[in-house]
């Protein structure tokens, strides 16, 4: 009898897994309708001619500008450059943030002091770093990277610190008892056990880094980048380019949130069984 219950339970695992993979056509229809309505209202407002065309281009004009920017490769290189800065800056944040988070766990005195500083700096507006960065480093890529790192590093640091600090002691005890120590304890127990909390921190850090990056690109006057398109658009009154860049920024943000982080979170939630309440 136990075997039959085991089998039926096992089938139910498989079923729930396959149900998740099915694409929901209802959702797609809803999104398409939403976009259609939005573009419709936009076109309507454009036709009312409340604003001049320079300030309020039509959806078609923006689409044209989008195609134009794609054709002369401006958009592609801008996306490339912006993503390059993001990857480098975010990478540095993760590396330094995780290491200093671990140092905070290792040295409790330092951890306590640092965590109160980090909490303050975490909510420090990223644009407020820009004048400091310009004078300290200059109007260059390193200035932009500095702003990106400073605005995201503290989230990584804090989530590492609290994530490892909040690991249930029984995991550590059990692992030590099974022979884990030093690096193997860290690699096989502490990092995976802290993953859910680390992931939340990384997502927040990513979002801070993204905000800071676009802000810095505008204000530090990078020569290429999505922020640079916004800056040029303002200087030369190219609203269609501004909106194109905004839509691109929006799309990249959405992509990261929905594809990269949601996938990671789903995997972790599935493993840990954290989303049972949501499913039913």
């Amino acid at each position, binding site marked *: 009898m136990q075997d039959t219950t085991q089998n039926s339970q096992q089938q139910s695992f498989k079923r729930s897994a396959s149900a998740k993979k099915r694409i929901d056509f209802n959702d797609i229809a809803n999104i398409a309708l939403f976009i259609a309505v939005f573009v419709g209202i936009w076109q309507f407002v454009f036709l009312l001619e409340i604003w001049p065309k320079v300030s309020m281009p039509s959806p078609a004009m923006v689409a044209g500008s989008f195609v134009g920017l794609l054709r002369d490769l401006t958009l592609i290189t801008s996306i490339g450059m912006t993503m390059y800065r993001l990857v480098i800056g975010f990478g540095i944040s993760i590396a330094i943030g995780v290491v200093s988070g671990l140092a905070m766990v290792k040295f409790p005195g330092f951890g306590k002091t640092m965590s109160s500083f980090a909490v303050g700096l975490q909510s420090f507006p990223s644009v407020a770093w820009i004048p400091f960065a310009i004078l300290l480093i200059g109007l260059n890529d390193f200035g932009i990277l500095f702003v990106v790192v400073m605005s995201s590093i503290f989230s990584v640091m804090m989530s590492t610190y609290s994530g490892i600090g909040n690991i*249930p002691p029984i*995991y550590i005890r059990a692992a030590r008892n*099974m022979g884990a120590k030093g690096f193997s304890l860290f690699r096989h127990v502490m990092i*995976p056990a802290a993953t859910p909390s680390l992931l939340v921190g990384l997502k927040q850090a990513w979002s801070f880094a993204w905000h800071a990056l676009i802000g810095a690109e505008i204000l530090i006057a990078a020569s290429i980048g999505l922020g640079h398109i916004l800056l040029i658009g303002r200087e030369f009154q190219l609203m269609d380019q501004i909106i194109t860049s905004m839509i691109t920024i929006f799309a990249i943000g959405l992509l990261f949130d929905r594809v990269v982080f949601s996938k990671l979170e789903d995997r972790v939630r599935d493993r840990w069984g954290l989303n049972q309440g949501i499913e039913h």
Partner: protein
Amino acid sequence: MATFIVCILASIEVQRTTNLEEKAVLKLNNISKVYHGSNSNNNSGFQVLIENIVLDNLNLQIKQGEFITIVGPSGCGKSTLLNILAGIDTSYRGEIFVDGRPISESIITDHIVIFQEGALFPWLTVYENIEFGLKIANLSRDKRREIVMHYIDMVQLTNFAHAFVHQLSGGMKQRVAIARALVLNPKILLMDEPFAALDVQTRRVLYDQLLQIHQKTKKTILFVTHNINEAVALGDRVIVMSPKVAGIKKEFVIELPRPRQLDYPLINSITKEIIEESRDLYLSNSSSANNSNNSTRPEHVLTAATISTN
């Protein structure tokens, strides 16, 4: 009704003791443990140091293949003792030998703990959880697979190898925990109330499985519980601990045949007898705790033969 207890002849006792010393897989000599607490909640305003003696010169020997159960009310030091044996707690006085070697020099995986609950790793599948210790020990993938499959089969979870921990019932989780300990081939299994959080029916299934596993693997097991019936049904020796004497109060040898059946009628009568004998432990105002001695000598031997003749 005539008493069930028959004291065994001294000569036999001596023989038993020497036997134990020869093959003791775990040997505890004069283990003492004191907790230092401080209490600032008094009227004087000064901090008062409080010494709480949890274990006082405890001696115990466990021989190869023996199934020892430790019972006692909460606060009697069972868990403290287990933490010391697991190598988690190192602040005690006395000597512990695992397989003839001092515990500090012993291989840590020679004494594996199975916790009450919640010690499985939720980020790993059943298979990976069981594999954990082997991975730490850097065994090759093929070797790991062979060992894991053997034990996962022993605890009858082969179908669930790739399930995650949260998809399992409480009983299955504890079976995973048992398999995870067994793969490391420990000299002694330390079980800290492993079935306390389970319902009665699941617990019975697990008793059966544990007895079968003990029969198959001939592992030495130290099983801590607060359930005397459980202790009698499983153990070769039941050790009753008391918070008043800070150590072993009494020791009962259970000479029921193995392989054991859980519905063996004598289990209940022996349980009653032990409860009767250690009644004072559970009564707060009793002054009859004069029976205390800390020797490892069994005071009472309960055998199937003696009881059935009564």
